[in-house]
Protein backbone atom coordinates (compact mmCIF):
# COMPACT_ATOMS: atom_id res chain seq x y z
CA UNK A 1 0.00 0.00 0.00
CA UNK A 2 1.41 3.39 -1.04
CA UNK A 3 2.03 6.08 1.55
CA UNK A 4 -0.06 9.21 0.86
CA UNK A 5 1.94 12.37 0.14
CA UNK A 6 2.49 14.80 3.00
CA UNK A 7 0.52 17.46 1.10
CA UNK A 8 -2.57 15.26 0.83
CA UNK A 9 -2.29 14.40 4.55
CA UNK A 10 -1.94 18.08 5.41
CA UNK A 11 -4.94 18.95 3.27
CA UNK A 12 -7.32 16.54 5.01
CA UNK A 13 -5.97 17.53 8.43
CA UNK A 14 -6.48 21.25 7.74
CA UNK A 15 -10.03 20.57 6.60
CA UNK A 16 -10.79 18.58 9.76
CA UNK A 17 -9.07 21.02 12.13
CA UNK A 18 -10.75 23.98 10.42
CA UNK A 19 -14.18 22.38 10.79
CA UNK A 20 -13.47 21.65 14.45
CA UNK A 21 -12.33 25.25 15.02
CA UNK A 22 -15.47 26.73 13.49
CA UNK A 23 -17.69 24.43 15.57
CA UNK A 24 -16.07 25.34 18.90
CA UNK A 25 -18.03 28.18 20.54
CA UNK A 26 -15.11 29.16 22.81
CA UNK A 27 -12.82 29.67 19.85
CA UNK A 28 -15.37 31.90 18.13
CA UNK A 29 -15.76 34.04 21.27
CA UNK A 30 -12.00 34.28 21.66
CA UNK A 31 -11.41 35.03 17.99
CA UNK A 32 -14.09 37.62 17.38
CA UNK A 33 -16.09 38.70 20.44
CA UNK A 34 -13.22 39.82 22.70
CA UNK A 35 -11.37 42.02 20.17
CA UNK A 36 -14.60 43.62 18.93
CA UNK A 37 -15.89 44.31 22.43
CA UNK A 38 -12.56 45.92 23.32
CA UNK A 39 -12.51 47.94 20.13
CA UNK A 40 -15.90 49.44 20.89
CA UNK A 41 -15.42 49.71 24.69
CA UNK A 42 -12.12 51.59 24.50
CA UNK A 43 -13.82 54.24 22.38
CA UNK A 44 -16.39 54.93 25.08
CA UNK A 45 -15.97 57.23 28.08
CA UNK A 46 -14.37 60.62 28.39
CA UNK A 47 -10.93 59.27 29.36
CA UNK A 48 -10.66 56.91 26.40
CA UNK A 49 -8.31 59.29 24.57
CA UNK A 50 -5.76 58.87 27.38
CA UNK A 51 -5.11 55.29 26.25
CA UNK A 52 -4.11 56.43 22.77
CA UNK A 53 -5.56 57.35 19.38
CA UNK A 54 -7.89 55.28 17.20
CA UNK A 55 -4.96 53.38 15.69
CA UNK A 56 -3.89 52.42 19.20
CA UNK A 57 -7.42 51.16 19.97
CA UNK A 58 -7.40 49.03 16.82
CA UNK A 59 -3.93 47.67 17.53
CA UNK A 60 -5.01 46.91 21.11
CA UNK A 61 -8.08 45.02 19.84
CA UNK A 62 -5.90 43.06 17.42
CA UNK A 63 -3.35 42.32 20.14
CA UNK A 64 -6.07 41.04 22.49
CA UNK A 65 -7.36 38.82 19.70
CA UNK A 66 -3.87 37.47 19.02
CA UNK A 67 -3.09 36.88 22.70
CA UNK A 68 -6.45 35.14 23.16
CA UNK A 69 -6.07 32.91 20.10
CA UNK A 70 -2.47 31.96 20.86
CA UNK A 71 -2.22 31.63 24.60
CA UNK A 72 -5.76 30.51 25.44
CA UNK A 73 -7.53 29.08 22.40
CA UNK A 74 -4.66 27.28 20.71
CA UNK A 75 -2.88 25.93 23.78
CA UNK A 76 -6.10 24.76 25.43
CA UNK A 77 -7.32 23.01 22.28
CA UNK A 78 -3.98 21.23 21.92
CA UNK A 79 -3.93 20.20 25.59
CA UNK A 80 -7.50 18.88 25.50
CA UNK A 81 -6.92 16.86 22.33
CA UNK A 82 -3.71 15.51 23.83
CA UNK A 83 -5.51 14.48 27.03
CA UNK A 84 -8.28 12.83 25.01
CA UNK A 85 -5.82 10.83 22.89
CA UNK A 86 -6.66 12.50 19.57
CA UNK A 87 -2.96 12.97 18.70
CA UNK A 88 -2.14 9.43 19.74
CA UNK A 89 -4.73 8.17 17.25
CA UNK A 90 -3.50 10.43 14.46
CA UNK A 91 0.12 9.40 15.02
CA UNK A 92 -0.55 5.75 14.17
CA UNK A 93 -1.60 6.79 10.66
CA UNK A 94 1.01 7.22 7.91
CA UNK A 95 0.70 11.03 8.05
CA UNK A 96 4.08 12.59 8.94
CA UNK A 97 3.94 13.74 12.57
CA UNK A 98 4.84 17.32 11.73
CA UNK A 99 1.74 17.66 9.51
CA UNK A 100 -0.47 17.13 12.58
CA UNK A 101 0.94 20.24 14.28
CA UNK A 102 1.43 22.35 11.15
CA UNK A 103 -2.23 21.81 10.30
CA UNK A 104 -3.17 23.36 13.66
CA UNK A 105 -0.91 26.34 13.00
CA UNK A 106 -2.39 26.89 9.54
CA UNK A 107 -5.91 26.92 10.99
CA UNK A 108 -4.87 29.40 13.70
CA UNK A 109 -3.21 31.67 11.13
CA UNK A 110 -6.43 31.53 9.12
CA UNK A 111 -8.41 32.51 12.22
CA UNK A 112 -6.03 35.42 12.83
CA UNK A 113 -6.37 36.59 9.24
CA UNK A 114 -10.17 36.59 9.44
CA UNK A 115 -10.11 38.24 12.89
CA UNK A 116 -7.81 41.02 11.62
CA UNK A 117 -10.03 41.68 8.61
CA UNK A 118 -13.20 41.74 10.76
CA UNK A 119 -11.61 44.15 13.29
CA UNK A 120 -10.42 46.47 10.52
CA UNK A 121 -13.85 46.44 8.85
CA UNK A 122 -15.63 47.14 12.15
CA UNK A 123 -13.10 49.90 12.91
CA UNK A 124 -13.91 51.50 9.56
CA UNK A 125 -17.67 51.16 9.96
CA UNK A 126 -18.07 51.94 13.68
CA UNK A 127 -15.08 54.12 14.53
CA UNK A 128 -14.68 55.63 11.07
CA UNK A 129 -10.98 54.70 10.92
CA UNK A 130 -9.97 54.00 7.35
CA UNK A 131 -6.47 53.35 6.06
CA UNK A 132 -4.76 53.49 2.67
CA UNK A 133 -4.71 50.05 0.95
CA UNK A 134 -0.98 49.51 1.59
CA UNK A 135 -1.50 50.17 5.32
CA UNK A 136 -4.26 47.55 5.44
CA UNK A 137 -1.91 45.05 3.84
CA UNK A 138 0.91 45.95 6.21
CA UNK A 139 -1.43 45.72 9.22
CA UNK A 140 -2.55 42.23 8.23
CA UNK A 141 1.07 41.14 7.70
CA UNK A 142 2.05 42.49 11.14
CA UNK A 143 -0.97 40.70 12.64
CA UNK A 144 0.31 37.45 11.11
CA UNK A 145 3.75 38.12 12.62
CA UNK A 146 2.00 38.75 15.94
CA UNK A 147 0.14 35.48 15.63
CA UNK A 148 3.51 33.73 15.23
CA UNK A 149 4.66 35.37 18.49
CA UNK A 150 1.60 34.36 20.48
CA UNK A 151 1.20 30.91 18.93
CA UNK A 152 4.80 30.21 19.91
CA UNK A 153 3.98 31.38 23.47
CA UNK A 154 0.96 29.04 23.38
CA UNK A 155 3.22 26.26 22.11
CA UNK A 156 5.65 26.88 24.97
CA UNK A 157 2.79 26.74 27.50
CA UNK A 158 1.48 23.47 26.10
CA UNK A 159 5.03 22.14 25.91
CA UNK A 160 5.80 22.88 29.54
CA UNK A 161 2.41 22.00 31.09
CA UNK A 162 1.14 18.46 30.65
CA UNK A 163 -2.45 18.56 31.88
CA UNK A 164 -5.27 20.50 30.23
CA UNK A 165 -6.72 21.55 33.60
CA UNK A 166 -3.42 22.98 34.82
CA UNK A 167 -2.88 24.64 31.48
CA UNK A 168 -6.32 26.22 31.61
CA UNK A 169 -5.47 27.84 34.94
CA UNK A 170 -1.97 28.85 33.87
CA UNK A 171 -3.24 30.26 30.57
CA UNK A 172 -5.69 32.50 32.41
CA UNK A 173 -2.95 33.66 34.79
CA UNK A 174 -0.67 34.53 31.89
CA UNK A 175 -3.42 36.04 29.80
CA UNK A 176 -4.12 39.00 32.08
CA UNK A 177 -0.47 40.19 32.40
CA UNK A 178 0.03 39.82 28.66
CA UNK A 179 -3.07 41.93 27.97
CA UNK A 180 -2.34 44.30 30.85
CA UNK A 181 1.18 44.94 29.62
CA UNK A 182 -0.17 45.70 26.17
CA UNK A 183 -2.39 48.42 27.60
CA UNK A 184 0.29 50.73 28.93
CA UNK A 185 2.88 50.83 26.17
CA UNK A 186 1.70 54.23 25.00
CA UNK A 187 1.15 55.88 28.34
CA UNK A 188 3.33 56.67 31.36
CA UNK A 189 0.36 56.92 33.75
CA UNK A 190 1.77 53.99 35.76
CA UNK A 191 5.33 55.29 35.59
CA UNK A 192 8.13 55.05 33.08
CA UNK A 193 9.29 51.61 34.28
CA UNK A 194 5.88 50.06 33.58
CA UNK A 195 5.80 51.90 30.26
CA UNK A 196 9.24 50.53 29.35
CA UNK A 197 8.37 46.94 30.35
CA UNK A 198 5.06 47.26 28.55
CA UNK A 199 6.67 48.63 25.39
CA UNK A 200 9.13 45.70 25.19
CA UNK A 201 6.67 42.98 26.16
CA UNK A 202 5.45 40.71 23.29
CA UNK A 203 2.15 42.61 23.20
CA UNK A 204 3.85 45.99 23.47
CA UNK A 205 6.22 45.26 20.58
CA UNK A 206 3.32 44.08 18.48
CA UNK A 207 1.27 47.18 19.23
CA UNK A 208 4.16 49.44 18.29
CA UNK A 209 4.46 47.62 14.96
CA UNK A 210 0.70 47.63 14.38
CA UNK A 211 0.45 51.37 15.08
CA UNK A 212 3.27 51.98 12.61
CA UNK A 213 1.64 49.71 10.04
CA UNK A 214 -1.57 51.72 10.36
CA UNK A 215 0.31 54.92 9.68
CA UNK A 216 0.05 56.38 13.18
CA UNK A 217 3.84 56.63 13.24
CA UNK A 218 6.21 56.62 10.34
CA UNK A 219 8.58 53.68 9.85
CA UNK A 220 11.86 54.63 11.48
CA UNK A 221 14.96 52.99 12.87
CA UNK A 222 13.19 52.73 16.24
CA UNK A 223 10.87 50.09 14.82
CA UNK A 224 13.66 47.62 14.10
CA UNK A 225 13.90 46.95 17.85
CA UNK A 226 10.29 45.75 18.30
CA UNK A 227 10.53 43.85 14.98
CA UNK A 228 13.66 41.93 16.00
CA UNK A 229 12.27 41.44 19.51
CA UNK A 230 9.13 39.88 17.99
CA UNK A 231 11.21 37.49 15.90
CA UNK A 232 13.30 36.72 18.98
CA UNK A 233 10.23 35.98 21.12
CA UNK A 234 8.88 33.71 18.36
CA UNK A 235 12.09 31.70 18.03
CA UNK A 236 12.66 31.47 21.80
CA UNK A 237 9.16 30.28 22.70
CA UNK A 238 8.87 28.02 19.65
CA UNK A 239 12.11 26.27 20.59
CA UNK A 240 10.88 25.81 24.18
CA UNK A 241 7.45 24.64 22.99
CA UNK A 242 8.76 22.16 20.44
CA UNK A 243 11.65 20.88 22.60
CA UNK A 244 9.43 19.97 25.56
CA UNK A 245 6.22 19.10 23.75
CA UNK A 246 4.79 15.64 24.43
CA UNK A 247 2.16 14.02 22.22
CA UNK A 248 0.61 12.14 25.14
CA UNK A 249 -0.24 13.65 28.51
CA UNK A 250 1.05 10.76 30.63
Amino acid at each position, binding site marked *: MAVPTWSSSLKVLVRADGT*AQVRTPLSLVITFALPLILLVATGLGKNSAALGGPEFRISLALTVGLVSIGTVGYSLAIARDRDAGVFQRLRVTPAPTWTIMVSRWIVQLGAVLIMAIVVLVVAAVVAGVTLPPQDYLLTVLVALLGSAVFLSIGQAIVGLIASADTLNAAGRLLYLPLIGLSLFGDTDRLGTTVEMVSRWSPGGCLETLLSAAMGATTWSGQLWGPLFASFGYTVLFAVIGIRWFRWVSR
Partner: protein
Amino acid sequence: MAGEIAIGDVDARAHPLQAKAQLGVQLQTTSFHSSLTLVEIVRLYAGLYGVTLTSAQIRELLVQINLQKEASKRFRELSGGQQQRFSLLIATIHDPALVLLDEPTAGLDPQARRQLWDRIERFRKEGRSILLTTHSMEEAQAVCDRVAIMDHGKILTVGTPAALIASYRDDPKVRQAAHGEVTLEDVFIALTGRELRD
Protein backbone atom coordinates in the same frame (compact mmCIF):
# COMPACT_ATOMS: atom_id res chain seq x y z
CA MET B 1 16.29 -1.69 21.93
CA ALA B 2 17.13 -4.93 20.14
CA GLY B 3 15.40 -6.96 17.44
CA GLU B 4 13.59 -6.02 14.30
CA ILE B 5 10.02 -5.36 13.24
CA ALA B 6 8.84 -6.13 9.72
CA ILE B 7 5.33 -5.66 8.39
CA GLY B 8 5.22 -7.84 5.27
CA ASP B 9 8.49 -6.92 3.60
CA VAL B 10 8.68 -3.44 5.13
CA ASP B 11 11.29 -2.74 7.81
CA ALA B 12 9.22 -0.77 10.33
CA ARG B 13 12.21 1.03 11.83
CA ALA B 14 13.74 2.08 8.54
CA HIS B 15 10.42 2.98 6.90
CA PRO B 16 7.92 3.83 9.66
CA LEU B 17 5.41 5.59 7.42
CA GLN B 18 5.29 2.67 4.96
CA ALA B 19 4.86 0.32 7.90
CA LYS B 20 2.05 2.44 9.35
CA ALA B 21 0.31 2.39 5.96
CA GLN B 22 0.14 -1.43 6.21
CA LEU B 23 -1.23 -1.36 9.75
CA GLY B 24 -4.71 -0.91 11.10
CA VAL B 25 -4.65 0.15 14.73
CA GLN B 26 -7.36 0.27 17.35
CA LEU B 27 -6.02 1.79 20.55
CA GLN B 28 -7.35 0.89 23.98
CA THR B 29 -8.67 4.40 24.58
CA THR B 30 -9.44 5.99 21.29
CA SER B 31 -10.67 9.48 20.72
CA PHE B 32 -11.30 11.50 17.63
CA HIS B 33 -11.81 15.24 17.04
CA SER B 34 -14.67 16.01 19.44
CA SER B 35 -16.45 18.41 17.07
CA LEU B 36 -16.48 16.21 13.99
CA THR B 37 -19.33 13.94 12.95
CA LEU B 38 -18.80 10.25 12.19
CA VAL B 39 -18.96 10.95 8.45
CA GLU B 40 -16.29 13.65 8.77
CA ILE B 41 -14.05 11.39 10.87
CA VAL B 42 -14.34 8.60 8.28
CA ARG B 43 -13.43 11.10 5.54
CA LEU B 44 -10.44 12.37 7.57
CA TYR B 45 -8.94 8.95 8.28
CA ALA B 46 -9.66 7.63 4.78
CA GLY B 47 -7.77 10.67 3.47
CA LEU B 48 -4.84 10.04 5.82
CA TYR B 49 -4.52 6.54 4.36
CA GLY B 50 -4.93 7.78 0.79
CA VAL B 51 -8.36 6.21 0.37
CA THR B 52 -10.95 8.24 -1.54
CA LEU B 53 -14.53 7.57 -0.51
CA THR B 54 -17.73 9.07 -1.89
CA SER B 55 -20.53 10.07 0.47
CA ALA B 56 -22.48 6.99 -0.64
CA GLN B 57 -19.51 4.73 0.16
CA ILE B 58 -19.16 6.29 3.62
CA ARG B 59 -22.87 5.75 4.24
CA GLU B 60 -22.50 2.11 3.14
CA LEU B 61 -19.61 1.61 5.58
CA LEU B 62 -21.71 3.01 8.41
CA VAL B 63 -24.59 0.71 7.41
CA GLN B 64 -22.22 -2.26 7.69
CA ILE B 65 -21.56 -1.46 11.34
CA ASN B 66 -25.18 -0.45 11.98
CA LEU B 67 -24.35 3.19 12.68
CA GLN B 68 -26.14 4.77 9.72
CA LYS B 69 -28.54 6.62 12.03
CA GLU B 70 -25.61 8.04 13.98
CA ALA B 71 -23.85 9.44 10.87
CA SER B 72 -24.31 13.05 12.02
CA LYS B 73 -23.46 12.39 15.66
CA ARG B 74 -20.15 13.11 17.39
CA PHE B 75 -17.99 10.18 18.51
CA ARG B 76 -18.49 11.01 22.20
CA GLU B 77 -22.27 10.73 21.76
CA LEU B 78 -21.99 7.01 20.92
CA SER B 79 -22.32 4.15 23.41
CA GLY B 80 -19.22 2.11 24.34
CA GLY B 81 -20.09 -0.68 21.91
CA GLN B 82 -20.83 1.77 19.10
CA GLN B 83 -17.54 3.55 19.75
CA GLN B 84 -15.61 0.28 19.48
CA ARG B 85 -17.42 -0.71 16.27
CA PHE B 86 -16.65 2.69 14.80
CA SER B 87 -13.00 2.57 15.94
CA LEU B 88 -12.64 -0.83 14.29
CA LEU B 89 -14.09 0.57 11.08
CA ILE B 90 -11.52 3.40 11.14
CA ALA B 91 -8.73 0.92 11.90
CA THR B 92 -9.57 -1.15 8.82
CA ILE B 93 -10.70 1.59 6.44
CA HIS B 94 -7.62 1.10 4.25
CA ASP B 95 -7.88 -2.70 4.14
CA PRO B 96 -4.63 -3.28 6.08
CA ALA B 97 -2.63 -6.49 6.01
CA LEU B 98 -2.16 -6.43 9.79
CA VAL B 99 -4.67 -5.19 12.36
CA LEU B 100 -3.53 -4.35 15.90
CA LEU B 101 -6.31 -4.43 18.47
CA ASP B 102 -5.48 -3.22 21.96
CA GLU B 103 -8.09 -4.54 24.40
CA PRO B 104 -10.93 -3.93 21.92
CA THR B 105 -13.69 -5.31 24.15
CA ALA B 106 -12.66 -3.76 27.47
CA GLY B 107 -15.71 -2.39 29.27
CA LEU B 108 -18.23 -3.74 26.76
CA ASP B 109 -21.42 -5.62 27.62
CA PRO B 110 -21.64 -9.29 26.49
CA GLN B 111 -23.75 -8.48 23.42
CA ALA B 112 -21.37 -5.79 22.19
CA ARG B 113 -18.40 -8.05 22.92
CA ARG B 114 -19.88 -10.95 20.91
CA GLN B 115 -20.66 -8.60 18.03
CA LEU B 116 -17.05 -7.41 18.00
CA TRP B 117 -15.78 -10.98 18.12
CA ASP B 118 -17.89 -11.68 15.02
CA ARG B 119 -16.24 -8.78 13.22
CA ILE B 120 -12.78 -9.96 14.27
CA GLU B 121 -13.66 -13.44 13.01
CA ARG B 122 -14.75 -11.92 9.69
CA PHE B 123 -11.39 -10.13 9.36
CA ARG B 124 -9.63 -13.41 10.02
CA LYS B 125 -11.64 -15.16 7.30
CA GLU B 126 -10.77 -12.34 4.91
CA GLY B 127 -7.13 -13.34 5.35
CA ARG B 128 -5.92 -10.45 7.52
CA SER B 129 -3.46 -11.01 10.32
CA ILE B 130 -4.73 -9.80 13.68
CA LEU B 131 -2.59 -9.06 16.72
CA LEU B 132 -4.87 -8.68 19.70
CA THR B 133 -3.87 -7.79 23.26
CA THR B 134 -6.31 -8.67 25.99
CA HIS B 135 -6.59 -9.44 29.68
CA SER B 136 -9.65 -11.59 28.96
CA MET B 137 -8.58 -15.21 28.55
CA GLU B 138 -12.16 -16.00 27.56
CA GLU B 139 -11.67 -13.66 24.62
CA ALA B 140 -8.27 -15.11 23.75
CA GLN B 141 -9.69 -18.61 23.84
CA ALA B 142 -12.66 -17.57 21.69
CA VAL B 143 -11.01 -15.62 18.88
CA CYS B 144 -7.27 -16.40 18.78
CA ASP B 145 -5.47 -19.02 16.70
CA ARG B 146 -2.29 -18.58 18.68
CA VAL B 147 -1.83 -17.11 22.14
CA ALA B 148 1.31 -15.70 23.76
CA ILE B 149 1.05 -15.28 27.52
CA MET B 150 3.23 -12.37 28.63
CA ASP B 151 4.25 -11.13 32.05
CA HIS B 152 6.50 -8.17 32.84
CA GLY B 153 7.38 -7.83 29.14
CA LYS B 154 8.46 -11.45 28.68
CA ILE B 155 6.71 -14.16 26.70
CA LEU B 156 6.12 -17.11 29.04
CA THR B 157 4.52 -19.48 26.56
CA VAL B 158 3.08 -19.56 23.05
CA GLY B 159 0.64 -21.94 21.42
CA THR B 160 -2.92 -22.50 20.32
CA PRO B 161 -5.45 -22.18 23.17
CA ALA B 162 -6.20 -25.92 22.99
CA ALA B 163 -2.50 -26.86 22.96
CA LEU B 164 -1.72 -24.59 25.92
CA ILE B 165 -4.56 -26.07 27.95
CA ALA B 166 -3.51 -29.60 27.01
CA SER B 167 0.15 -29.09 27.87
CA TYR B 168 -0.49 -27.43 31.24
CA ARG B 169 -3.58 -29.43 32.25
CA ASP B 170 -1.69 -31.62 34.73
CA ASP B 171 0.48 -28.86 36.20
CA PRO B 172 -0.30 -28.72 39.97
CA LYS B 173 -0.56 -24.91 39.88
CA VAL B 174 -3.09 -25.13 37.06
CA ARG B 175 -5.09 -27.78 38.94
CA GLN B 176 -5.09 -25.50 41.97
CA ALA B 177 -6.29 -22.53 39.92
CA ALA B 178 -8.99 -24.46 38.07
CA HIS B 179 -12.62 -24.48 39.14
CA GLY B 180 -13.74 -27.60 37.27
CA GLU B 181 -12.78 -27.78 33.58
CA VAL B 182 -9.30 -26.30 32.97
CA THR B 183 -9.48 -23.05 30.98
CA LEU B 184 -6.92 -20.75 29.40
CA GLU B 185 -7.43 -18.40 32.35
CA ASP B 186 -6.31 -21.15 34.74
CA VAL B 187 -3.15 -21.59 32.68
CA PHE B 188 -2.62 -17.82 32.71
CA ILE B 189 -3.05 -17.60 36.51
CA ALA B 190 -0.74 -20.53 37.06
CA LEU B 191 1.98 -19.03 34.87
CA THR B 192 1.78 -15.41 36.04
CA GLY B 193 0.85 -15.88 39.71
CA ARG B 194 -2.09 -14.80 41.82
CA GLU B 195 -0.68 -11.48 43.01
CA LEU B 196 -2.65 -8.40 42.02
CA ARG B 197 -1.11 -6.21 39.30
CA ASP B 198 -1.05 -2.41 39.14
